């Protein structure tokens, strides 16, 4: 059974229940029940019409829940037992779900969890495992999120920007559990791009594709990080790169630049270079200038300093870095890199060690520690070489 085909049906089924009179929270619960049932039953007994099967089972679950609720609370619940003629196909249920699940009243973590469940069709257990929290905690996070958006009208157009930020988080901050969150983010971005003509949706999809293309080369088998310059570029996925570049070019042609398009353009320039030496750093600096202009982001300025260091030499990079707050995350790592390129391995080694202590995750810390260790070992080697009367 192809689970992603099954999961692609989930938003539609939630939408159908909604048009039959179920509120979002109840519809979503019922469809989740049907989904769990489908995963159990379909491998042995695949339905002829998967969507109709899901609608029938979810609707039955919904009615059961309403009846239980009604008899418990002895109150009137107005639900049409027969589906009313819906308002028609002009409202795209799936698109509305994206907006609802990324509603600005939700915290980022709640929006991520709700999107993965209601739009992505993942089970609470899968989401909990992906984010390394207990299932009960994730269940509560999701039901709180549903309560938060319970008053939101389902037929109002939402803000694409909030949806994009949620998908970006799913892609960028994915842990490595059973569920491939990066692939899931790409699936959700593709599905969104098919429904809405928006240059930044395309920009984000391109950005994801171009970074996903490098995944086979990003880590060694032991999990350690391989910096971009050292990656085996023959292992980059050329199909994903080609698709990412196509999507990006179509977006840029609309001439409404946004931050995701600019980031994707930078990724595309890296993808273009057959070797690290061929990288067009001058153009990359120009895109970072755009990105800084668009976002004012300190992280973009920091990355720009690296690019300036490559385009105009380490001195220029250090000058760009000197204008930034040293308290920025990864500032010491960038400073270390630029000092090494500037021929000052002693300062670089010290800064790499500082950066390792401040690293926000283990693979980065290990990588920075190895950089410091490499420079210190080279220095010891030179000192021994001098003692032995060899050339340094």
């Amino acid at each position: 059974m192809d689970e992603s085909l099954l999961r692609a049906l989930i938003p539609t089924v939630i939408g159908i229940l909604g048009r039959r009179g179920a509120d979002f929270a109840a519809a979503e619960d019922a469809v989740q029940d049907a989904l769990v049932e489908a995963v159990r039953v379909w491998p042995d007994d695949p339905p002829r019409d998967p969507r109709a099967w899901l609608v029938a089972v979810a609707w039955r679950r919904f009615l059961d829940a309403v009846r239980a609720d009604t008899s418990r609370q002895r109150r009137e619940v107005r639900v049409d037992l027969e589906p009313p003629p819906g308002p028609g196909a002009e409202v795209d249920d799936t698109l509305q779900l994206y907006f609802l699940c990324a509603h600005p009243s939700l915290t980022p973590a709640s929006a991520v969890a709700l999107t993965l469940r209601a739009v992505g069709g993942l089970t609470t257990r899968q989401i909990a495992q992906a984010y390394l929290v207990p299932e009960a905690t994730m269940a509560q996070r999701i039901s709180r999120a549903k309560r938060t958006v319970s008053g939101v009208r389902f037929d109002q157009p939402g803000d694409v920007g909030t949806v994009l930020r949620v998908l970006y988080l799913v892609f960028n901050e994915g842990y490595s559990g059973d569920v491939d969150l990066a692939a899931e983010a790409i699936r959700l971005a593709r599905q969104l791009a098919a429904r809405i003509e928006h240059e930044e949706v395309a920009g984000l999809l391109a950005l994801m594709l171009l970074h996903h293309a490098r995944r086979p080369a990003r880590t060694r088998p032991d999990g350690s990080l391989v910096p971009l310059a050292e990656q085996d570029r023959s292992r980059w996925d050329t199909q994903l790169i080609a698709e990412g570049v196509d999507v990006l070019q179509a977006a840029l042609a609309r001439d409404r630049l946004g931050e995701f398009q600019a980031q994707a353009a930078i990724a595309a320039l890296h993808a273009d270079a057959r070797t690290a030496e061929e990288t067009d750093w001058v153009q990359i600096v120009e895109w970072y200038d755009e990105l800084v202009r668009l976002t004012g982001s300190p992280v973009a300025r920091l990355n720009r300093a690296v690019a300036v260091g490559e385009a105009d030499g380490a001195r220029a990079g250090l000058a760009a870095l000197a204008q930034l707050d040293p308290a920025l995350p990864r500032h010491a790592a960038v400073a270390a890199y630029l000092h090494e390129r500037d021929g000052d391995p002693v300062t670089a080694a010290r800064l790499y060690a500082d950066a390792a202590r401040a690293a926000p995750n283990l693979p980065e810390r290990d990588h920075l520690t190895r950089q410091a260790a490499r420079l210190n070992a080279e220095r010891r080697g030179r000192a021994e070489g001098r003692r032995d009367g060899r050339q340094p």
Partner: protein
Amino acid sequence: MAKYLLLKHYRGAPAAVNDVPMDQWTPEEVAAHVQYMEDFAARLEGTGEFVDSQALSPEGTFVRYDGEGRPPVTDGPFAETKDLIAGWMVIDVDTPERALELAGELSAAPGAGGRPIHEWLEVRPFLGAPPTITE
């Protein structure tokens, strides 16, 4: 979201404001304290922020490798060890400010006289997963 460890120390943290050993409390005060801790964890589960909570025995053994084919060497407990961890709670929250806020609330657990202990808790961020997009 980021995970934080709220660490409670038997020893090693600065003295609490309401610093009376637990065995000097009344049984009702002990019960109220335990209830507060349980309610706190239940509330965090309700907000979708709870990950784990554990208490540790103060008795520990130090162990080290002693070479191929030899049993590990054990030692301790060391009465002079300055830092002694009593237990922890792991939370998963949106911001560092939220982690501090929750640690502050946990530190308000009632102690002697039913008054908050104001005990010092240590808040430590977890090292997370590396981001996919780095440039």
